[in-house]
């Protein structure tokens, strides 16, 4: 009897709640205050801009609705929703190197060339770092405003280096010698660490590849088996095989960074944007001990990538493209960029790195590293192949890396990857 009453009560509330909820779930578009839907990843930039949104709403009269997703979940969202020409979001944060070509080919992104022409003079499109402007340009049209820039840098542990009397290496040879000297596996101390996971490793490997004088392809032909590329593959695999903790083949930064942050690793190569984690006493024991240096030089010099990891774009199916642009113009404009940069973001505007104000939140060695790697003729504008189906290409290219880390036959793996990658490139140009 008791239970029956409860079931009835439960049923009644269950029936009523959705009725109330449904009526409120219809988007409150129209009226005098339009709503702009913005899709963002969970990212420090997202958190930083959130606080300023009310300001924008007040000035523009546009109501902004932010949706945040984990990085992978966000890309799942785009895949499903844009496939069905969804208007669920107007502004979308995307990853130019990963998604750019695919989204443009699928006609998911609206070009913003016309908006840029009409933009306020203060917006200064030319202020964005050249490599980042390239990364949002596909076939001569611009599809987004670059947000976050990333360069690969060399993190090191000052304490470990000092204890062994090792200087900060500037070349690959010095790096290997120092890593060898600092590796003491019995003590749980390792000389070197970088990403080794099949797909994730490719971006961090790219700077090694360029510095050894190689690249993934020349636009049409795969170049994974050139002597330069071979040397890079062998070097990267050997470093992780001999001087790194076990299990690197499954490491993305999520797994790798904490090991460096726990002071167990002397050298760690990864993106500059991870550094706030090292400064956070809640996750890091090396807050006072970590240093950062420009990417070491290989036989061809030091050529780290410098990319626009994230950019804002406009959904091609959006019905509020003009409002979307207004938001983008505000969010990536001079003023807001300075404000966000001061909150610790490394943004894509060149002027920020030239002014004392823009670099206020940065450590000196980080500024030096960023400046030297964004200099003309040094940085490479891509950290993964410039193709449409990036995920698939990365898994092909990553294979010899993983083989090298596990001490397998790298030469054979390279030849296999070369063949597969050529086949892949052919199928892309055909399509």
């Amino acid at each position, binding site marked *: 009897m008791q239970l029956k009453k409860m079931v009835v009560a439960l049923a009644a509330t269950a029936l009523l709640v959705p009725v109330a909820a449904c009526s409120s779930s219809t988007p409150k578009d129209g009226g005098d205050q339009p709503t702009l839907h913005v899709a963002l990843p969970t990212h420090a930039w997202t958190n930083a801009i959130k606080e300023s949104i009310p300001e924008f709403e007040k000035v523009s009269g546009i109501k902004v609705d932010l949706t945040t997703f984990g990085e992978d979940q966000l890309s799942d969202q785009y895949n499903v929703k844009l496939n*069905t020409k969804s208007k669920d979001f107007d502004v979308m944060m995307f990853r130019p190197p990963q998604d750019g070509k*695919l989204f443009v080919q699928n006609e998911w992104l609206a070009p913003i060339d016309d908006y840029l022409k009409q933009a306020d003079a203060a917006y200064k499109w030319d202020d964005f770092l050249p490599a980042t402007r390239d990364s949002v340009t596909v076939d001569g049209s611009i599809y987004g405003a670059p947000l976050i820039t990333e360069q690969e840098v060399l993190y090191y542990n000052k304490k470990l280096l000092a204890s062994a009397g090792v200087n900060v290496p500037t070349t690959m040879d010095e790096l290997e010698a120092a890593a060898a000297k600092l590796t003491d596996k019995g003590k749980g101390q390792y000389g070197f660490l970088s990403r080794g996971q*099949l797909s994730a490793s490719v971006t961090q490997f790219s700077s090694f590849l360029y510095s050894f004088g190689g690249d993934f392809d020349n636009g049409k032909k795969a170049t994974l088996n050139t002597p330069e590329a071979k040397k890079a593959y062998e070097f990267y695999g050997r470093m992780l095989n001999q001087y790194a903790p*076990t299990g690197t*083949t*499954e*490491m993305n930064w999520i797994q790798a960074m904490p090991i460096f942050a726990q002071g167990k690793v002397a050298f760690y190569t990864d993106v500059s944007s991870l550094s706030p984690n090292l400064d956070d006493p809640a996750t890091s024991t090396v807050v006072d001990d970590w240093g950062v240096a420009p990417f070491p030089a290989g036989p061809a010099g030091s050529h780290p990538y410098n990319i626009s990891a994230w950019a804002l774009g406009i959904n091609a199916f959006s019905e509020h493209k003009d409002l979307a642009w207004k938001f983008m113009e505000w969010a990536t404009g001079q003023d807001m960029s300075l404000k966000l940069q001061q909150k610790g973001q490394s943004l894509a505007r060149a002027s920020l790195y030239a002014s004392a104000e823009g670099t206020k939140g940065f450590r000196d060695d980080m500024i030096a590293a960023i400046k030297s790697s964004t200099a003309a003729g040094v940085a490479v504008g891509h950290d993964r192949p410039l193709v449409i189906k990036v*995920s698939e290409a990365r898994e092909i290219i*990553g294979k010899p890396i993983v083989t090298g880390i596990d001490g397998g036959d790298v030469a054979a793996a390279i030849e296999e990857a070369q063949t597969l990658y050529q086949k892949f490139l052919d199928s892309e140009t055909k399509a």
Partner: protein
Amino acid sequence: MTPPKPVAQTASALSDFANKHRKYVLAGPATFFITCMLIIPLGFTVYLSMTGASGSVSRNADFLGLANYAEILFGNDRFWPAVWRTVVFTSVVLTVEMLAGLGIALLLWRTFRGDSILRVIILLPLVATPVAVGMMWMLIFHPTIGAANEILSWFSVSAQGWLSDPRQALPTLMFIDIWQWTPMVTLILLAGLRSISDEPLEAASVDGANSFQRLIHVILPTLAPTLVTALLLRAIDALKTFDIIYATKGKGGGSYHEAETLNILAYSYSFDYQYYGKASAVLVLFLIIILTICCVLIIMRKKQRV
């Protein structure tokens, strides 16, 4: 016969109709709903599987006939390993879960003080949200900060890679699945055990059978239909395991695709590679495999009952 009560006499034409066609009126909405949500999407998937749809489904795609199937069955280096992993995962997990489940059910069979608390505890892994469970195990099995390695170090065992070691990832995932679903098998078998009458057991005891002999000759044969049902229910879910693999290994299932089962492969092909044609073909083949296995088990179950 007593005369009909007035309540029933007021039956309108509508209720007459409803009663006359009650099969269709009552089962209609449910069947209609399932048909719409199942048949139409399934048809679409079958259609996609015969096209070269990639990138975006709304772009025009070539009709390829059975080419995707041919490619997957004979020219793809990820399909068969994924089938193999799915089969290995499912069979190992089912074997351990059935054995452990039976063992625990036997321990709980005869009531004792405190057994109700045990039956409550056993429910916890079953009802816990799989994604949260995945996160929990990801922390426990973390190679550098996880508790599992810390505990091993007490016994001077060196740190293991667990989920991050290509050779250990699938076994670790099996462990998680076993941890989560053995209780379900236990509960089902316990219900089965409790419905066995005492007479044949007592008769066997009188004949001098020991506990083990009673288990083999009396308990297991009686329990057989329940065992097959438990097997069927678990097989359906184990074959389709998604949440914990997605949560711990992501799309693609690791550097060597070492945790990539068919469901994960289909997901990566759709949402990572955007090969909708190929992904759909994988899904159709996957569905055929599942249906075959289920049919075999259902037939077994029917035979057990006769």
